[in-house]
C-alpha cells in the first residue's frame, strides 16, 4: 500500500486552511420597514414578506 512519506507540517496544513472563510450573508433591504433582511425570507423586524404581514414581531 502506498503511503505518505512525510507528515504534512502545521504550516502546510494551516496554509491550506487559509481559504476556509465564512462569507457574509447577502442581505437586502426590507421593502416595508427598510431594515436589512435575508432574501426570500420574511423580514425578522416587521414580519412582512411580499407586501403581506406574515407574523407580528414580539417587541
Amino acid at each position, binding site marked *: 500500500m502506498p503511503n505518505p512519506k512525510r507528515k504534512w507540517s502545521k504550516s502546510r496544513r494551516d496554509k491550506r486552511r487559509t481559504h476556509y472563510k465564512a462569507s457574509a450573508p447577502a442581505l437586502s433591504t426590507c421593502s416595508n420597514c427598510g431594515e436589512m433582511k435575508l432574501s*426570500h*425570507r*420574511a423580514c*425578522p423586524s416587521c414580519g412582512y414578506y411580499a407586501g*403581506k*404581514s*406574515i*407574523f*407580528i414581531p*414580539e417587541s
Partner: protein
Amino acid sequence: MRHRVKGNKIGRTASHRKATLSSLATGLILNKKIKTTDAKARALRPLIEGMITRAKVDSVHNRRIISESINDKEAVKTLFSEIAEKVGDRPGGYTRIVKLGKRQGDAADIAIIELVDFSGSVEKKPVKKRTKKEEVTTPVKETEESEIKDAEVIEETVVETKEESTTEADDTESSQQEKKDE
C-alpha cells in the same frame, strides 16, 4: 440519479413520519397557520392539499378517507365545514409557505405554512399582541402588589413582637415604637 425519488422522508420511519404529518395536518386545520421547519412544511403541503381537495365534496366516504390520516374528529369537522366552505372553487394552491430564517439552537430553516384563504383572518387576533398589553399594564400592578406585600410583612413583624411581649414586656414595647416610627 434522482429518478422517481419523490418527497422528503424527514429522517423518520414510515410510522413516525405518518404520525408527524398527521399531527401537523391537524394543527394546520385547527389553527389555519403553523410555524414549523421548512422541510416539514414542504412535506405537509401535498398531504393537506389533497385533503382539502377531497373535502370539497362532503360525503361519508370522503370523511372516512380523511379520517384515515387525521385522528381528530374536530379537525375533520372543521375541514369539511369551515375550510371547504371558505376555499370554495379555488383550483388547488390552498397553502402558502413563507420562510422565516434559521432557528437558534440547531440552525434549522423555519417557515410558516398557512391556508391562503384564512391568511388575513388569523392575524386580526394574534396572541402576541395581548402579551404586549399585559406587559404595559403589569408593571403598575406589580408595584401595587409589592407595596401590599411590604405592608403585610410589617404587620407580621408587629404580630411576632406582640407574641414576644408575653415573655419580655419592656423590650417589645420599645421595638414596636421603633416600627411605628419607621
